[in-house]
Structures are given as C-alpha cells and as structure tokens.
C-alpha cells in the first residue's frame, strides 16, 4: 500500500494542532472550529479508505486466508544500539485498522458536537488544537510498529488528556483532576517503561511483529532468567500490563478516571470513554501472542479485570453525578474486555475456545466505543440543557428533549445487552468465552452484566422519568443541530453494529472465523438483563421511597459504594501523608540542615579556629620570642622523631 495516505492520516491532525495552536489565537472561533472539523473529516475519510482497502483488498490476505500484517512504513527515529531502535512506523493489521475507524469516527463526531457544545467558550481554538493533538497521538499509538513507538504516543495521549481535562484551568477541581490523571498514569507508565526495558534486554528488540510472529522465541530468549521467584517474562508482561492498567483505569489505578470527568463532556466521550482508555486493552491485544505464553500474566489480567468490573459496577449503582456513573460503567466495560482477553488464552501458548475471547474483546471495544460515546454525548446534551451534572437536577426530561431521550435509550439498551443492539452481541461473545474458560468467571461476569443493566437504567429512568421538577423560566431545550447529528449517527451505528460478522475481520490469529451465538448463554444473559431493567423500572420509574428504603436497608454497603470504597482517601493518605510529608519534607530538611549544614560547618569551624588562636599574636615581644624558642625546640624534637623512625 502506498505511503502517502497513511502518512497523511498521521500528519494531518499534527498539522492541525500546530496550525491551531500557533495561529489559533489570531483566528475567529468559527474558523478554528470548522478547520478542526475539516481536518478531522479528511482524516476520517482517509482512514475509512485505508481500513476498507485493508479488509477487502485480496493483496492483504495470504493464501491460507490469513490477513497479513502490513508495515506501510517504518522510519528510524532514534537508534539506541544496533538492534534496539525506535522506529516511527505504520503497522496495518486487523486491530489497527479497526482502531483507525473507531478513533476517527468518534473523534470526528466529537469535533462536530463540540461546535455546538463548546460554543462561545474562552479558548475555543485551544480546545480544537488539543483535540487534534489527541487524535494524532491516538492514531500514532494504534499504528505503532514497535513497543517503544507505542510508549511514545502513550505518553503523548497522556499529555493531551492532561491538557483537555484541565481545559477549564481556572477551576481548581479541573486542575487537580488533570494533575491526578497525569500522575497516576505516569506511575503506571513507569511500570510500562520498566517492562519494556526488561523485555528488550532479553529479546533485543522492540518490534511487535518480531515478538508476536514467533512468541516461543521470546520465551526461549528469557529462558531460565528469574527475578524474586517469578520468571522475568512474567515480570515484564505484568509490568507492561501495569501500564495498560493505568491508562485503562483498572483497579487499583482507576481513581483518575472519575475525576477526569471535570473536563468538557465531549472530551470525556472521546478520550475517557471511547479511545484512550481502551489503549490498555489494545496493548494487551497487540502483545497477545506473547501473553499467551505466560500463564501467570494472563491469570493476573483476568483477576484484575474481573475485580475491576464488579467493583466499578457496584459503585456505578450509587453515583449521583451522571458523568461519574458513565465513567464507572466505562471502567467496568473495559474490565470486560480485559477479562475476555485474559480468558482467550490458556497461558501455555494455547488459546481457549478458538481464541474467541480475543475477538469478543475487540468486538466489544468497537461497539462499546460507539454506544459509550453516544451516552456521553447524550449526557453532554443534558448537561448543556440543565447546566448541572447531577440527576437530582433532572427528571422527566423525555418531554423536553426527545432526540436525546431516544438516542440515550438506545445507548442504554446497547450497553445493557438487549438484542438487537450492538452491545448484546459483543457482550454475549465475551460471556461465552468466559464460560468456556471457567464457569465461575462466567457467572461472575454475568452478574456484572446484570448490574450494568441495572445501573444504566437507573440512570435512564432518573433522568428521563422519575419526577417532573419545575425548571422555572428557562425550560430545558433540545440539543442544537451540530450536537444532535452525532447523537443520531452514533445511535444508528449502535443499532446495526452488532450484525457485523466481526470474526471475519478480527481474530487472534487473523484467520477468518464464524461467530455462532451460543443461545443458552445468550438467552440467560438476556433474561438477566431484562430482570435487572425491570427492577430498575420498578424502583426509579416513578418517584417513590424504594431507593431510600434500599439505602437504609444496607447502609454500610451503600456508603462504601457511594464513596467508591474509599480508594481516593487511601491514595490521599499515601501521597500526602506518607510520600509528601514522610519522604519529601524530611529529605528537603536533611538537605538544608545536614548536607548543607556540613558545608557551612567547615566555614564556621575555620572561623572559630582563627578566633581561638588569635591569642598567639598578643603583641608582646617576649611572647613572640617565647613562641619562637619553643617552636625551634619542638622543630628539633620533631626532627629527632623523624630521625628515629
């Protein structure tokens, strides 16, 4: 495939960033906005074209029907050693093509949406510049040909998410949220970096294709090397996965994501729902053949994922801020994908159930991106309408804003896993993969699915039904056109996306594979979901005392969930009390008073000494002579001493 179009896909957003970032302040809001959209639109078209060619052009399919991994270009960016080199390249394979589509779609939708949502905001141009920067980084991340390129763009998406979360930089909460997001992910990235170092030290390569095409060789290269009991490969993979945990907000590194909702809602939709947060999943998928080799690592992934999924779902049931509910649902959904990746392998180099989990995970990533972006944008429309994030300020909105209502409902159905909406299909694949791996994990995940359905509809009912508060003189208004269009488009996608024969496009070994619905599992999960929705309807459809009863029935549980199991408090304690007051301050004190004190002490001692011996110079001749004589004799004595020795 010729190089220009992929290169353009990467360069266009970067160029837009520079253009809007440098010249933006001179432009009018409108111009900047439309420029941004134009750039992203072109990018969208180009990447659709690329993806299309990749999937449907026979030249990318080998004789045995395997889709080949195609490196469009791979430029040397920084050479460390002869075989360790950072390349900037463009790797085209099923998942990267998939991600190209997802990213550009969502990004374009958000660009469009923001025209309405961010209208008249101060720093509108800056906002679009940052959006372009983010799109650039994310695209670079997904097409990375080597793990270090991924790390580079990994950092860049972190930075642009920092900038976008802190977009309202005069708001304290926004600033601290952005800081939190950056530092937590930075911490995770440290793990990622060390993982890369360890892996590259043994494999002597960063290149994905090299590593994944023959993972047994990776295993061999680290053969026998262990560190603190575990094999270094386990260490490396777990550490790399830590990076993924950070970006994808897995427990215990999830705490930044809810706060990240301080950013503008479209940003949350783009970064913190659809694209950046799935980077972790993407990373693991990218390295999947290597992870397959290492049972411990995959087990770790499954455990973390399962725990996170349940935890987030629990918390989501109690949150008041609608964006937070969505944030936690995102966490839990990503956990789904992680688990599904984990269960795709048996850890001994074999895949379980034909690697269904892998495909399911990617599938869910795709569908989830769509409906979660839809939900967030809907939430944005609501917030835009009632100027508050809390459902307590909403209620009965279905009458005021029908489009939002219907699209939001579609989103909820999709995530709850009701056929024929897209979520149903992907989630069903995941569940069947889980059951195939181990029934316990399967049941666990079904329970989480139930919870998901419950809290989503809790949210839905609380917003659109529940009661009819008096909105006073300014009634909530329907979203303006530029905001409405993306909602509709995404809703449409969420309706049909489930019918894509996904197995033909994305599988772990890139061989086509037929999805067949396992109706026993599908059926049960539908039933479960419906029950959950019914419960939600019972509790929240009309204003009533049930929720309060519920709350009072299990106060402890409710408190813990409401306070997100006190994770933030724990982190506050560790960072402020222990690290800040327990390490930094003592060190600073030590530096000023001990190290520097010693240096000053030299000077002081010298001064003291010079004061102490001043008596020698008493001004008395006889004293002088006396010193002289003693000196001479001592000198003689010293000489004799030396003579004896």
């Amino acid at each position, binding site marked *: 495939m010729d190089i220009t179009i992929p290169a353009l896909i990467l360069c266009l957003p970067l160029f837009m960033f520079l253009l809007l970032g440098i010249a933006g302040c001179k432009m009018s809001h409108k111009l900047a906005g439309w420029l941004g959209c134009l750039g992203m639109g072109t990018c969208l078209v180009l990447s659709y074209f690329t993806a299309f060619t990749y999937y449907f052009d026979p030249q990318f399919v080998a004789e045995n029907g395997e889709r080949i991994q195609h490196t469009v270009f791979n430029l040397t960016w920084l050479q460390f050693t002869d075989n360790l080199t950072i390349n900037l390249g463009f790797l085209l394979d099923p998942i990267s093509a998939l991600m190209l589509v997802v990213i550009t779609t969502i990004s374009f939708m958000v660009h469009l949406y923001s025209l309405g949502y961010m209208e008249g905001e101060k720093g509108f141009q800056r906002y679009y510049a940052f959006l372009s920067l983010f799109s650039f980084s994310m695209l670079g991340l997904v097409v990375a040909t080597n793990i270090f390129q991924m790390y580079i763009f990994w950092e*860049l998406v972190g930075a642009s998410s920092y900038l976008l979360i802190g977009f309202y930089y005069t708001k304290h909460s926004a600033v601290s949220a952005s800081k939190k997001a950056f530092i937590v992910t930075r911490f995770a990235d440290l793990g990622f970096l060390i993982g890369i170092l360890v892996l590259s030290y043994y494999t002597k390569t960063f290149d994905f294709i090299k590593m994944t095409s023959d993972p047994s060789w990776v295993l061999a290269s680290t053969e026998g090397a262990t560190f603190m009991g575990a094999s270094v490969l386990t260490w490396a993979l777990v550490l790399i996965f830590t990076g993924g945990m950070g970006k994808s907000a897995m427990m215990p590194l999830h705490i930044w994501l809810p706060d990240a909702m301080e950013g503008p809602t479209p940003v949350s939709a783009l970064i913190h729902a659809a694209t950046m947060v799935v980077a972790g999943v993407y990373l693991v998928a990218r390295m999947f053949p290597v992870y397959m080799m290492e049972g411990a690592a995959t087990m770790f992934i499954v455990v973390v994922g399962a725990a996170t999924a349940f935890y987030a779902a629990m918390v989501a049931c109690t949150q008041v801020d609608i964006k937070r509910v969505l944030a936690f649902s995102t966490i839990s959904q990503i956990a789904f994908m992680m688990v599904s990746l984990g269960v795709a392998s048996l850890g001994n180099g074999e895949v379980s159930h034909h690697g269904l989990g892998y495909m399911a995970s990617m599938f869910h990533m795709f569908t989830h991106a769509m409906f979660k972006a839809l939900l967030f944008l809907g939430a944005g429309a609501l917030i835009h309408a009632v100027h508050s994030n809390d459902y307590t300020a909403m209620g009965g909105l279905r009458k005021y804003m029908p489009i939002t209502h219907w699209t939001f409902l579609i989103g909820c159905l999709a995530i709850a896993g009701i056929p024929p909406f897209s979520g149903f299909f992907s989630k069903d694949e995941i569940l069947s993969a889980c059951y195939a791996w181990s029934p316990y994990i399967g049941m666990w995940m079904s329970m989480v699915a139930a919870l998901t359905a419950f809290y989503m509809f809790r949210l839905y009912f609380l917003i659109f039904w529940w009661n009819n508060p008096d909105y006073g003189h300014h009634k909530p208004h329907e979203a303006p056109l530029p905001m409405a269009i993306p909602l509709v488009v995404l809703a449409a996608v969420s309706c049909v996306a489930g019918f894509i024969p996904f197995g033909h496009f994305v599988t772990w070994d890139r061989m086509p594979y037929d999805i067949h619905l396992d109706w026993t599992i599908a059926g049960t999960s539908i039933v479960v979901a419906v029950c959950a929705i019914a419960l939600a309807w019972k509790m929240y459809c009309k204003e009533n005392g049930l929720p309060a009863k519920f709350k009072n029935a299990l106060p402890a549980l409710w408190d813990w969930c409401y306070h997100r199991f006190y994770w933030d408090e724990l982190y506050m304690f560790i960072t402020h009390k222990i690290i800040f007051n327990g390490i930094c301050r003592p060190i600073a004190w030590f530096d000023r008073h001990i190290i520097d004190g010693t240096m000053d002490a030299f000077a002081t001692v010298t001064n003291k000494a010079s004061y102490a011996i001043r008596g020698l110079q008493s001004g008395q001749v006889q004293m002088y002579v006396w010193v002289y004589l003693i000196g001479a004799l001592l000198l003689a004595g010293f000489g004799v001493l030396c003579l004896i020795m």
Partner: protein
Amino acid sequence: MFSNPLIYFVVIPLLMLGALALCANIKQIRAVAVAGSVALMALSTYVLLEYLDMRAAGDNAPMLFVDSWQWFTPLNIHLAVGVDGISIAMLVLSSVIIFAGSFASWQIPQPKAFFLWLILLSTGVFGFFISIDLFTMFMFYEVALIPMYLLIGVWGSGNKNYSAMKLTLMLMGGSAFLMLGLIGIYYHSSADGHLTWNILEIARNGAISSGWQYFLFPMTFVGFGVLGAMFPFHTWSPDGHASAPTAVSMLHAGVLMKLGGYGCFRVAIYLMPQAANELAWIFLILTGVSVVYGAFSACVQTDLKYINAYSSVSHCGLVLFAILMLNTTAMTGAIMQMLSHGLMTALFFALIGMIYGRTHTRDIRLMGGLMKIMPYLAVCYVIAGMASLGLPGLSGFVAEMTIFVGSFQNADMFHRVFTIVACCSIVITAVYILRVVGKLLFGPVQDKHHEELTDATWWERLSTVTLIVSVAAIGCFPNFFANLIKTTFSPEIFTVLGLN
C-alpha cells in the same frame, strides 16, 4: 594559528571584551553582545557542519581540527585544541544559550560590567570545550568559575553575599582536588618519561598504573563532579541559582554545570578507564541517589528557582549516572541529557526571571493563574515543564530514554537495579513539575495586583523562542544528535574505555 576555526571560539569573546570596554552606551553594548553571540552561533554551526562532512568523508580520528601550539615548552604545556562530537554538541549548546542569555538580560543595570563578566565567563566555557590539553583545560575551567562571584554578588538578589561566596568556594574546592588530580595524571602520563598534558596522547599511552588510577580517578571525578552537582556536593547550586540574576542562572545551569559532566567524561573516565570501571559503583550509588533525592526535595520547595535547582541536581545526577555506565548508548544519552537539560533549564530560568521581573516574587504560594495574565510566558513555562518531565517530542524524553535503555543493557544486576531506581525519577519529576504548573499558572489569580501585569516583550519572546525551538529540534530529530555524538566513540575510545 588562525587557520584553525576552533581558536575563534576564544578570539571572538576576547574581541567582544575589547569592544565592550570601548562601548559608551547601552545601545552599543547590546549591539556588541548580540553581534558576538550571533557570530559564535554561526561559528559553532560552521564547525558542526565541517565536522560532519569530515566524518562523512571517513576521517575517524578521535578528534578533528586538532592543533597544538607550544606554550610552556619545558613542561610540555601546549595550547592544544580539538573537537569531537561531544565537544561540538557542547559548543553549539553554549552558543545558543549565550545568545538567549544576552537577550534575557536586555535591561540589566550596569550593563557594561555585567556583559564584560558574562563574556569572560563564556570565554572560559568555550576555551574549556575546545582544549584538549589538561593545563589549558583547567585554566579555562577556572576562568569560567570566578566571574560567577561578581555576577551573583553584584547583580544578584536575596541572600547574595552568602550564596556567591559559598558557590565560589565550593567550586574552587572542587577544582583544588582537580588540580592535584591533573598534575598527578601529568606525572604518570607516559611510560618512557616523555610526559605530556595532551589528553589524546595520554589516552594513547595509557601509562597510568592501576594503583595511581585508584587515587587520581576519584580526585578528578569529584573535582568535576562538584560542578556537576553531584550529591553530596550539590548544595551550592540551590542557593547560587536562587541568588543569581537571570542570564547568569541560565548560563550557569545551562552551560557551566555541563563542564562538570563533560570533564568527568573527558578526563576522569577517558584517561582512567580501569579505575572508572572498578570504582564506578561508588559514584553510581551517589549519583543514583542524587537523581531521586533531588527530585524528591524539589517536590516541597516553594521558591521557583529552588525547585529548578533541585531538578537540576536530579537531571545532572542522571548525566553523571549515565556516564558511569560506561557503555556507548548510555553515554550518548548522557550527552543528550546535557544538551536537553542545558536548554530547558536555561528556558526555565529565563522564564522564572521574566516572571520574577514582573511579580517581584518567586514564591509559588503568592502567585497563581498567570495563564490568564501572561499567556505567552505561561505557555512557554508549560512547554519547559513538559520537556523536563520527558514528554516525547521534546528533548527530555529522548535523552532520558537513551540513558535508561543504555544503562539497562548492562549485564550486571546492580547496574540494572539502579537504572530502575533512576527511572522512578520520571514520576517524581512529573509530580513537582505539575505541582508548580498547577499552582503558578492555573487556578484563579492569587494577587489582584498581578492583574495588570504585561506579557513578554519582543526580546523576551526571542530568547525563549530560540530555546524552545532548540528543545523541540532535539526532541523531534534525536537521531541527528545521537549520531553526532556517536561519531565520538571512535574505535580508539572504545579500546580506551574497554567498551564494545
């Protein structure tokens, strides 16, 4: 003698000194400063290109433009010059920072005296980087050190008397050890009694016995290390930087501290590889500590310059750390780190000076929301911060990554564990950088009087843009610089260092 381009690195500053002495008014002084720094930049660029051409033409002598003129004949002291990739990188760095610095001190009081001292300092710096004769090297080294005293003492602020004296004495203390080390090297420079000060010859002879290396290596390494802000000899740096005027902080952190790292490599390690190899662990511990230690203590500072000084301790610690790793990649990283740290610290200090010049305070608790008031400076500050916490695309990232990857290639567990310890600094760096950015630039405006402050003037913009562009250049095209530096590690040096 004047056919060699290198000599002009000393001649131009001297001419500038002469011209400055004749200047009558501020306009002329500025003209001289700008013209001179531009000339230096042009010269360094010219040398860079020439050098690359010659390398491309297959000239793999350890140093190029080598030339040497008799000075003190009986002692075999020469004025010997020569450059390799590292020195050229340093020369370019210095010229850029001097250029930026002379714009940053556009409105300094008593400009004449100030620029006289500043240029004297830069004379020392350039002389140090071009000379390959231990004696002249040491001479220029001290020439570069002493003007600091007056620059800080006269134009400084705060507790300047104390800081200036402390800085001067501590650095001179370092050079005391250094002098002994150098003389010692001279007397063991050759087996056949034909003693020499010339680095290349000493390296070629490799006659320093291991016993003496054990004695001389620490001497020289500590001697230079003091200027490289090596723990525990770094305490001059916070006070010194805090009191120094803007341009001096820029030059000092940007260039002068590099003399330390450069000397450690060029003298201590290059001439005494064996001791370097066997004693490295001691200094690895020290520097590894100072990387983390500096970062931690930066987290709680409230004075902008203190924060920066401590981050310098951390970053320069990384330089020495990487040099001690004794492998090509890590050393390349060390040199790139010198470049990157030089540029971004200079940028930091320039911005701090500009902010201080407006708000008259450096206490981050008394400032806030500057992004609203002086967006240009604020944005530059954010960029500098991003460079410092290692954002890809800016210089910090490539340097640090090269260091980490290089250091981690060491077969020995100890080195790798310490590399991981050093890696942790990237998180702590993020913490203190974001803390400052958040407190200083974001949030609501703290002090109502700051509302009517102005944004950067054209000369401030020029000086910052220069630095930012260079930072970005390194960050975006690292391979160019990496290769430039790698040209240094020609086979001869491999043999000397026992690398492969």
